Each structure stands twice: as C-alpha cells, then as structure tokens.
C-alpha cells in the first residue's frame, strides 16, 4: 500500500501503547506476515482428516483434494462455512433478544417495551390486530410469530422474510430456491452439506451461500433490530462524541464492548443508579462509553459517547484510564484480558459463550439482569478507587458526531419538508443528480487498512462526487472519529449538489448547520436499517432495490459477519465493493461467478479494490450505470 495516511487518533493511541512497551495487533501482524497464500486463495481444505489438502495455484502440485474435490468446490465450501459463521452470530443474537422480549412480557426479565411505535408498525406488517388491545398483548403475538420461525419443521417460508422483504425480490429468491423456513435447520444443512463427502458442486454451494446470507439479512439482522427497537426504543437523531478523548481522567470510565444491547442497556441504567457511590469514591461521575457495536447501539438510542472501534480496543486499555471494560459477544479480542491485567482494569466477560483466560466472569442473563449489572458497575467503581491518583495517558482527540439516523428518524425529518410524501424530496434530488447515489459503508475496522485510512479516504472521495454515505458498525466509528458526521464535513467534503440537499435537511432538523454527509445508522446488526431505507425508496419509485443507484462497501473486512451481510446485499441485487479479497481467488469459476456472472442472477457483482480512490471510482462508475439504466 503506497499511501501512508495513518489517522491521527490511531497514531496517538499507538504511541501510548508503544511508550508503555505493549506489542499491538500491528506488531503481531508483522510477525505473522507474510500470510499463507493457500489461506488467502481459499484453496486450503481442513474439513476431513485425509487432509489438510492444498491446491497448487501454479499447477505443478496437487490439482484436487485427496477426495478429488476441485478448487472451485473447495473455495465455495469454505466461503459457505464463513457465511454460516456470520449468520449463526446474528441469528444467535436475534434469538437472545427474542427470548428476552418473551421473558420480559411474562414478567420474568426486568425489561419494558419502549418502542411502542415499532410494535404498531410491525403489527400492521404482520396483520396482528391492535384495536383496543394492550401494547404487551400485541407484542406477545409478534413474539409468537417470531418464535414460530425458530421452531417450524415445514417448508413454508419464514415469517420474517415473507412479511418484511419486498415482494419482487421474494419471487426471484423463490425461483432460485433461496427462500427458507427455519434458520436453524438451514445452518445445520449448510454444515452438513460442507462436511466430507457431500455437496461438491460449486454452483450449488454458491447458491447455498446466497441462501445463508438471506437468512442473515432477514432473521439475523431484520428480526433482531425490529425486536431491539421494541425493547429499547426506536433511535432518534442525537449528537454525541467519538474517539479516545471521551475518556475522563477523574470519572469512572466504564467501557461497554460487544454487540448486544440487552447487556449494555442495563449497564447504562445501573451506572445512573450507582452515580452516588461513584461520587463517594471521589469520581466526578460514571462515564459509560461505547466500544465497537454495543457502543453504536447505546449511541443511537442514548447519545452515549463512542470511545473506540474494534481495532482500537486494546489501545484504549493501554491509556490506563479505562476502569472497567464489560463485554458480551462477538469481536472480543482475547488480548484485551492481557492488557487489562497490566492496569488493574476490570475486564469482565458476561456470556457463557465468551470465556477468556484472565478475565473476570460475571454471568449475565436477562432473568437476573439487574443484579449482574449492579455487580459490574460496582466493579468499575472499585477499580476507579484503585486507579485514583495514578497517572493516565488519554490522547485528547475527539470529534462531534450526529447519530441515531434510524429509518423512522429519517422519515420524521423528511416529513418536515413534505408531510404527505416524505421520500419525495430525496427522490427529486436523486433524479436531478444533487444526490448522485448512495453507498452503504459497513463492516469492520482492519489494522491491514488503517495505514491508508481506507474508510475515511474512500468516503471523502464519494462525498466529493455527491454520493450520500450510510454507515453502521465499526466503519461508523471510523467516520465519527474523523469528523465526517458533522456539519463542517458537509461544507468541507461534499460536492455542491449534495451540500445543497444537506443544508436544507439540516434546517428542517433544527440543526445549527447542514445535516452531516455520513449518516450513522447503527451497529453492524443495524444494516437492516440501510436495507429498509433502500426498500422504501425502491417501493416509492416502483423499481427493484437492485435498480437503485446504490452500492454496498465493506472496505475493511475482518469478521465472518461482514461476509454474510455482503451476501445479503448481493441477494437483493446490490453490488458490493470489498477489501481485502474474499478467499475465493483459487477457484476461477467461483471468482467469475461473484465478479461477473451473478449479474445475470440477482443483478449484483462483487468488486475488490484495496485503495480508497480505486474503490470510490468503481462505485461511482457503477452508480452511474444504474442511473443511466433508470434514465436519470
């Protein structure tokens, strides 16, 4: 990578870590490099014990596995297992939220329904009667519809996909054999089909990849987010701050890391309740900060400040200022426990599935949520007591950021311009080119792409060309830290057309300046919000989602979840940019399928670009093609 534009915040954090003698992920990557080409190409198979088998990409050595498996089938099988990993993560998260909601409604878990508007909207979608009924009763019906999805053994389509997804796309998915019933059965089938001696047809395997991705999109993401909104409320536009500078030397700094708001919402609640104890311990207050996606959840609903994205998690611990880091599920580096040990930081795991040596484990399950959350906040206060007066090293970088742009919040805002037809102002500005198109920038932050500030630079190239950026997950943190969620960013980076639109929207929102050009739509699970917005626009225009001037991008892919999310975009016909290359290049037919032939099936293609400008240029060109096809 020729460019070296390491973001200032990362530079400052790395200095803190290195000054204190910590090796970081960058150092560990250097030791690991160069990384194995067979792994990168996807042509390493460890599924059975005649292996491990590797295909020689130069044709001198093995051309198939010991069982005769071809390179294309090998990469497709491996990709399907990646997708299962991603989908299982989201579906597991969704089921956990569903069971929490069920137990809350039965009085067995201390949570209340806060998103009444969401309950009513979903009741309409699912045909649940509302007239004269209590909100909780309506909710029980919705819970039963969701529970049915996890228990059915028939071939009927899953409720959430058949009621929530657009009809035209469902017809296509039916034709391709991609519609599903019970997500658990499909996860089982995919693991079965990829074990030794089953599916060896690369095309069949790639259709399974798309099907698994659909499950991720509609059960893993959409169902989960719908129910989270019911439990915790629909996000509204809120102003927050981002980057390590949100840590406060004289406060109890409690970092919530992971993905599941069932934990972090309770932490926030108990931090308020135990404020007095913190004051008694000599702290100014309890400063709950958000890390990774549970941080995004808290930020979207409560304006909680964002301290770090995933690849900064070990670095903020090295400031010595984090009193406790409490984690739930997904993207928790085992290394965190080792750094925490050096500072007497309470590093607390809570989920039975996430056990890390040297971490303190405080089991958290919804039935006893209050008691566990109280213990966790107490542990943070105790750690502050031990830290008080010791030197800390907090780089003073932070940026303002507007968050909370749920689809509902966006529609509310647009209603101020056109109450009858809220999407009309957007449609008009897309038609006249002020908004050239949309890019959903999603996924992870990768140390492999921080040296060239991949996400920030790519986004700025897009904004200059009047492309509106919708973002979630760790790329949302990156954009927030870089000041891209501010009014100033609109003035500084946007082309004239996009700038003009955002000025009008900012005024309607009652902000001091224009609306920011990068819209924070939530955690990585909230990618369904981006899809919901696209579906609404497509329905308003009377076109399919894949016809919109819109592209997805995962510019710093790390997690398997980003693979399955990308697949769910592809199934919708939305093309995706991705970096680094997915592990398929050792299979020429699969590579061609994803980069070219998929166009014939769903209308989408995959493009790999490792440099920010190349990525932005391809997306703008792709959007231009979509615009031309629409005749605008």
């Amino acid at each position: 990578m020729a460019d070296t534009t390491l973001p200032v915040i990362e530079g400052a954090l790395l200095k803190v870590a290195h000054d204190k003698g910590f090796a970081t992920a960058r150092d560990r990557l250097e030791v690991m490099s160069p990384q194995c080409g067979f792994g990168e190409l996807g042509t390493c198979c460890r599924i059975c014990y005649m292996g491990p088998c590797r295909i020689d990409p130069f044709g001198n050595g093995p051309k198939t596995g010991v069982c005769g498996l071809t390179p294309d089938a090998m990469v497709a099988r491996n990709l399907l297992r990646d997708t299962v990993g991603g989908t299982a993560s989201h579906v597991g998260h969704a089921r956990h939220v569903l069971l929490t909601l069920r137990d809350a409604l039965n009085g067995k878990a201390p949570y209340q329904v806060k998103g009444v508007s969401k309950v009513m909207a979903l009741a309409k979608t699912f045909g649940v009667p509302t007239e004269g009924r209590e909100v909780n009763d309506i909710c029980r019906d919705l819970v039963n519809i969701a529970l049915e999805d996890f228990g059915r053994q028939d071939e009927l389509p899953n409720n959430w996909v058949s009621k929530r997804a657009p009809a035209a796309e469902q017809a296509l998915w039916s034709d391709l054999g991609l519609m599903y019933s019970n997500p658990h059965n499909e996860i089982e089938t995919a693991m079965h089909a990829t074990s030794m001696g089953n599916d060896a047809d690369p095309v069949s395997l790639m259709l399974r990849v798309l099907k698994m991705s659909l499950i991720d999109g509609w059960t893993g993401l959409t169902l989960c987010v719908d129910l989270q909104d019911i439990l915790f409320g629909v996000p509204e536009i809120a102003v927050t701050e981002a980057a390590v500078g949100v840590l406060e030397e004289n406060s109890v700094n409690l970092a919530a890391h992971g993905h599941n708001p069932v934990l972090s919402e309770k932490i926030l609640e108990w931090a308020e309740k135990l404020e007095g104890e913190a004051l008694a311990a000599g702290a100014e207050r309890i400063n709950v900060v958000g890390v990774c996606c549970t941080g995004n959840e808290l930020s979207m609903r409560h304006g909680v400040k964002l301290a770090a994205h995933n690849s900064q998690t070990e670095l903020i611990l090295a400031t010595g200022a984090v009193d406790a880091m409490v984690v739930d599920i997904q993207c928790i580096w085992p290394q965190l426990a080792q750094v925490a040990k050096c500072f007497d930081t309470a590093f607390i795991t809570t989920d039975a599935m996430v056990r890390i040596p040297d971490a303190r484990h405080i089991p958290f399950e919804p039935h006893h949520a209050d008691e566990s959350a109280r213990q966790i906040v107490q542990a943070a206060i105790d750690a502050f007591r031990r830290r008080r007066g010791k030197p800390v090293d907090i780089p003073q970088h932070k940026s303002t950021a507007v968050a909370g742009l749920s689809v509902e919040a966006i529609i509310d805002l647009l209603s101020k311009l056109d109450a009858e037809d809220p999407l009309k102002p957007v449609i008009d500005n897309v038609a006249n080119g002020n908004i050239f198109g949309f890019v959903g920038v999603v996924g992870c932050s990768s140390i492999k792409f921080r040296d060239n500030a991949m996400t920030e630079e790519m986004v700025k190239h897009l904004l200059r060309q009047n492309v509106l950026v919708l973002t979630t997950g760790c790329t949302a943190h990156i954009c927030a830290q870089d000041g891209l969620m501010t009014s100033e960013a609109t003035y500084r980076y946007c082309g004239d057309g996009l700038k003009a639109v955002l000025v009008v929207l900012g005024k309607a929102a009652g902000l001091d300046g224009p609306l920011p050009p990068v819209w924070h739509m939530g955690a990585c699970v909230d990618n369904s919000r981006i899809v919901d917005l696209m579906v609404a626009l497509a329905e308003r225009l009377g076109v399919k989602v894949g016809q919109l001037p819109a592209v997805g991008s995962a510019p710093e892919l790390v997690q398997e979840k980003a693979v399955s999310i990308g697949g769910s975009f592809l199934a919708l016909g939305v093309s995706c940019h991705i970096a680094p290359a997915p592990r398929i290049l050792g299979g020429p037919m699969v590579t061609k399928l994803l980069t070219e032939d998929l166009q014939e099936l769903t209308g989408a293609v995959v493009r790999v670009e490792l440099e920010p400008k190349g990525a932005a240029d391809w997306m703008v060109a792709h959007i231009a093609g979509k615009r031309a096809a629409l005749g605008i």
Partner: protein
Amino acid sequence: MSRTIFTVVENCVACKSCEIACAVEHSQSKTLAGAILETPPPQRRINVEGVGAYSYPSRCQHCSDASCITACPTGAMQRDCGTDAVFSDSNKCIGCWMCVVVCPFGGVTADQSSKKALKCDRCPERTARGEAPACVAACPTGTLLYLTPEEFAAQRRQATARAAVCGEQPAQTNGMDILRSLKGAN
C-alpha cells in the same frame, strides 16, 4: 557437481511449510507431534520473508567461496567434503557471530538459547538416504528445488526454448496472479 537448493521465487505463496519441516528435521524426534513437545524447541533454518505481494524462502546458499568459512576464527564453519554443504560444528562454535556479519544472505542465525550459530546443513541424514532436504520435500508449489546447478540451468534453458518456439504461454488464472495484482508489487 553436488545438488543444492534452488528457489523459484514466483511460486512461493508463503505457506511456511518449509519452515515447519526444517524445524521438525532438526528436532530430536523428527516428527511434528514429537517436535512440538521438545525442550528446547527445535529451530528452523529457513525463513519466509515477505516483499509486497511476493514472498521468498531465505536460507544459506552454501556458497562455493563461502565467506562464513573464511571469517570463522575457530574452524567451526566448514564444508562437508562429501556433499559440499556448508555446516557449523557446534562443538567448535564460540558464538562470535562473525559468520552472521559476513553472510550476504542473512543465512546464519545467532541462536540465543544455545549461543551457537545455526544454519541450513542441507539435511545430511535425508540426502544420505537419497531424499531431498526437508524444506524441498515439504514445498507444495515447486518453489524449492533440489538440483545440481547444471540441472537447474538445463530446466531454465528448456523453458526459454519452449517459450521462444511455441510463443507466450496463455495467462494463468490461478488466483495468485489476481491476488498479487491487487496487492501491488510492493
């Protein structure tokens, strides 16, 4: 002339099979399962270095005029009169690292636990049995070859002649070319 180890750099995919096989060959048990349990752990004498999108298995070249032999003050560094391989006699090595300093390839490692020079010995036990050195045998892509210089040069001549007579070979779609073009040359 004796066989030695040649490297076809464009074939290396950095799988590091050579590193593992080298360490196992220089272990007590000579098996992977046994080697990982040994104390001190066996040390490899080949290192896969990364250069941009390419990688290179780096080791002793067993030079005909070996500066490490000249520089060694104790006679520890010497040439095997049977195989022509350059090796270090650990009984004579005093850990002065002159060999490390003079080697133009970085082919000698200063082992911190034994305080002795470590380097490729071209697997004398394997070659005595008529087998290729461990790294060559483990290489799955034909990056490492065990040939005499004449054999290697003859292979290259034949390939060049084929290209000249039959024209350019069609571009491969083996994935590594795509991966390397994505990553760039450096």
